[in-house]
């Protein structure tokens, strides 16, 4: 019984309650308190992460309490390598988002004085943010599948309110679409969760005890489908992706970061942990169709991104393309591809987070997300432009930046995967590599239209980043570059978990290096 994870979840919840109960008119205090709480969580997470033993048992910092014995449900938490890095990702992003959203609820005015967003409740926003943080940590830390499901669904609510109350003009449409899409997937998963419990007949939802229990191939397939659809919607995978551009475009930049950076990762995380390990035979049987969907996502997301006129929608579509990579990596079922996919989840969080935030800072200055309303930003605000460019380059997976390592691992891992006879996966990897070209088109074309060229008239009044905004972006950029050259700390944590996953999936796909040594 390790107290780490319950504490990690309790701190933001308590923080949220405190922030919500602050007296009227203490907006500033609410912000400071939220920042403090999120920083405390970050520190705690890092302290915990340092104690993680990479060679140790798969799940560490385990804590299991009875919750609903009638249903066989336990409050079971614990982290493996992948969960750990994703929790760390959440913990890193939240304080950044808090700082980035500092004035989001205050009501903003564009340079020419028109009201962009009206004043809204600051306390509510920040307490929702903290509640969301607790749930994000919870969803990754759950070792009980029922508990996972609870967080999986409950997470929607704070995000729903953050989009719906604090978002752009189309916010309520986007929020409802987001909620219903996710809820629908979640409910199908609920059926599968129940059926898993019933069919397994173990009287428990604890993940480690359910691995390898379901043997019947037909049952596996049905249950797999139930989980997978939910995760595919969450991830989102083509063709159930259309909620993301709306939600991400309408959400305030900070919420969009958490939505795309962390919440959507639950989908791919779930595929990797639950779809694969609980239903290995079904996963193998469905690999090809899913990889095809993933490849479609990659290419399709990229092409549609090229055609977007709204920055945030564009970024959302790039994410769809990137999620395609993650899904492909997961289902290619090789050590390299899955490690790459897990790493991609983290890197994508940083890269897209930086991109959304930088775009958000741009939009906050101009009051319009339309690319056509910009031009020549580089000349006026070189710092903002520089950060935006680096974030964009991370988005196109420029080597030397963190997303390259993961994308490369996914592609090469998929190509070299021998899990299913290499042919089809090799083709998938090659086709997905075309996204390398498309990514350059969508990012650089956006950069060209916003940062470059003659300075547009309204842009001339822009102020460059202030200290708060620099503090928001700089750590992300540092992480992007740092992990671009030194991905080892993350990979060392991820790799053993992936190995364990592959053992559970019964795929014999040893690491490249071992193979090489053998020859």
């Amino acid at each position, binding site marked *: 019984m390790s107290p780490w994870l319950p504490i990690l979840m309790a701190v933001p919840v308590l923080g949220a309650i405190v922030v919500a109960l602050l007296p009227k008119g203490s907006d500033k205090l609410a912000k400071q308190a939220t920042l403090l709480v999120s920083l405390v969580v970050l520190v705690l997470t890092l302290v915990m992460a340092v104690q993680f033993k990479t060679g140790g048992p798969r799940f560490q910092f385990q804590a299991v309490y009875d919750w*609903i014995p009638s249903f066989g449900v336990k409050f079971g938490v614990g982290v493996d390598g992948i969960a750990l890095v994703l929790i760390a990702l959440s913990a890193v992003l939240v304080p950044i988002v808090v700082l980035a959203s500092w004035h989001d609820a205050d009501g903003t005015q564009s340079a020419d004085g028109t009201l962009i967003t009206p004043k809204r409740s600051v306390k509510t926003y920040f307490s929702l943010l903290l509640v969301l943080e607790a749930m994000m940590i919870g969803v990754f830390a759950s070792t009980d599948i029922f508990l996972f499901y*609870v967080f999986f669904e409950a997470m929607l609510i704070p995000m729903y309110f953050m989009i719906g109350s604090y978002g752009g003009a189309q916010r309520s449409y986007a929020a409802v679409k987001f909620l*219903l899409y996710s809820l629908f997937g979640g409910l199908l998963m609920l*059926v599968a969760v129940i059926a898993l419990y019933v069919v397994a007949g173990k009287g428990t939802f604890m993940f480690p005890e359910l691995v390898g229990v379901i043997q019947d191939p037909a049952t596996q397939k049905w249950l797999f489908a139930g989980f997978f659809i939910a995760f595919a919607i969450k991830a989102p995978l083509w063709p159930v992706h259309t909620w993301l551009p709306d939600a991400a475009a309408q959400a305030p930049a900070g919420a969009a970061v958490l939505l795309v950076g962390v919440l959507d990762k639950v989908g791919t995380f779930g595929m990797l942990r639950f779809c694969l390990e609980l239903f290995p035979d079904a996963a193998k049987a469905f690999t090809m169709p899913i990889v095809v969907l993933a490849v479609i996502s990659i290419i399709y997301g990229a092409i549609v991104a090229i055609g977007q006129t709204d920055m945030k929608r564009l970024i959302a579509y790039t994410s769809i393309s990137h999620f395609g990579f993650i899904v492909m990596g997961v289902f290619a079922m090789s050590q390299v591809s899955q490690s790459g996919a897990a790493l991609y989840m983290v890197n994508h969080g940083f890269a897209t987070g930086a991109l959304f935030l930088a775009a958000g800072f741009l939009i906050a200055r101009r009051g319009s997300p339309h690319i056509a309303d910009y031009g020549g930003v580089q000349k006026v605000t070189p710092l903002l432009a520089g950060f935006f460019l680096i974030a964009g380059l991370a988005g196109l997976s420029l080597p030397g930046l963190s997303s390259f390592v993961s994308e490369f691992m996914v592609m090469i891992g998929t190509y070299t995967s021998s899990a299913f006879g290499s042919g089809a996966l090799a083709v998938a990897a090659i086709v997905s590599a075309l996204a390398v070209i498309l990514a350059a088109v969508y990012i650089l074309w956006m950069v060209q239209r916003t940062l470059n060229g003659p300075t547009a008239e309204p842009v001339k009044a822009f102020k460059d980043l202030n200290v708060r905004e620099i503090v928001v972006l700089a750590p992300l950029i540092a992480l992007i570059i740092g992990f671009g050259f030194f991905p080892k700390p993350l990979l060392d944590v991820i790799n053993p978990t992936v190995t364990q996953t592959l053992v559970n999936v019964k795929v014999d796909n040893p690491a490249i290096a071992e193979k090489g040594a053998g020859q």
Partner: protein
Amino acid sequence: MNDAVVAPTIEYGTLAPMLLVFGAAVVGVLVEAFAPRYMRKSIHVPLTLLSLAGAFALVIVQVVKGAVPTAPVAMGAVAVDGPSLFIWGVILVLSFVCVLMINDEGHFVASAAAVPGSADEEEAEAAGGSHTEVYPLVLFAVGGMLLFPASHDLLTMFVGLEVMSLPLYLLCGLARRRRLLSQEASMKYFLLGAFSSAFFLYGTAMIYGFAGTVSFTGINKALSTGSLLDPILLLGLSLLGVGLLFKIGAAPFQAWKPDVYQGAPTPITALMASGTLVAAVGALLRVFWVALGNLDWDWRPVMWAVAALTMVVGAILAITQTDIKRMLAYSSIAHAGFLLIGVMATFDKSAQNAKSLSAIMFYLLVYSITTVGAFAVVTMVRDPGGEAGHLSRWAGLGKRSPILAGIFAFFLLAFAGIPLTSGFFGKYAVFAAALASGSEAGDSLGGWMTGLVVLGVVASAIAAFFYVRVIVLMFFSDPAADGPSIAVPSMGTVAVIAISLLITVGVGLFPQPMLDLANQAASGLFIR
């Protein structure tokens, strides 16, 4: 020949809760007759509340003593078994809470006899008159609700049904505002209710014809020996079903629900949506599981279709509703459908049946508590002409009154079954029971049960849309300039909302105590 009349044995102790309620009702009538007008209310309120609380206490005493009878009491007329006691407890809590709401000024007409808009009405209102008959009527209805699910023969059940329904017909017509609607609701409810009771009765007659008895034990026995294909039996079964399904508002017998829920005074709607539903589901279970348990191979497929239709009709029709109470009525229809999934989760496996029963009872508890809370919120949002029923009036409520809107949003999320609310665990319990029973070896409906659950989640997703729509209206829309006012709530209403919220949140976080209760109550199943 010794023809001496043997006095029937009545277990007064066991029946005490019910008898207390009925007794209080009779006393209430006497109060109406003899107490001076100005004193009546101050007598009725404590009388009603104390009798309900007392009845609840008596239920608790029985539970605590553990002396749950294993055979029907009162000469085989009433079965006070675990489920009965649970349902009684739930109904008594609900009715207590509803009475707190009823107690609030302004819901009931000053003089039902006065024609709406006439001078009589103005005069009655000016005199500050009120229908204190409401209290004994409610007590009679509650008594009926207690009897209905606990009855052990069809005749007692019929009587219970009528005792429950007749006062409600009247109560529906007593709204202070929008009296035309209220009276119309009352008449529709009455005519259709009477119509459906006739079906129930005719079904009873057929069953009696087949089994030679109306006692559930007897019917059960007859079904284990006689020909199960007798048309009289099947006809009786279907007509009984009509009467019971009508009461829970299952499709295609749901038509009355929206009209009546909309027209009736809101506290009465709350009572119907919670107490009546609980009682009716209890009765439905008793008839179908106890009396007709041996016939489940026949009625389960049909119930499958009814459940599916009910969920879909409720969810789909709710989407386009514009009146909050009407929408909640359709929501209640959809929930009746979910409950029917649970009702189907039975066949010849008593352990599994106990789980299903527990799931249904748990669902009833959490759903009805949330419902009462939701209607209590509805009473507080007011226009000059009464409650602001039309949804457009709710726009921007979240900005004008964030706490109230937040609570209502939470109730809606509970209806939608979002995790960390009580509604989620209710839904989960029922779905889990259905899947578990479907996967038991020997269930002929195995895969179909899964299909029904999938249909159930699809309906839940559709249903989520209209719950979410209200949240969107309240929080994401700008308030109307002449928006509704929020009534300063009475202590009673505050208490109602607080209790519902507490249970909805509490059970949402820690459902185990309630589940234990339901499990314990269901462990012995129904007395056969």
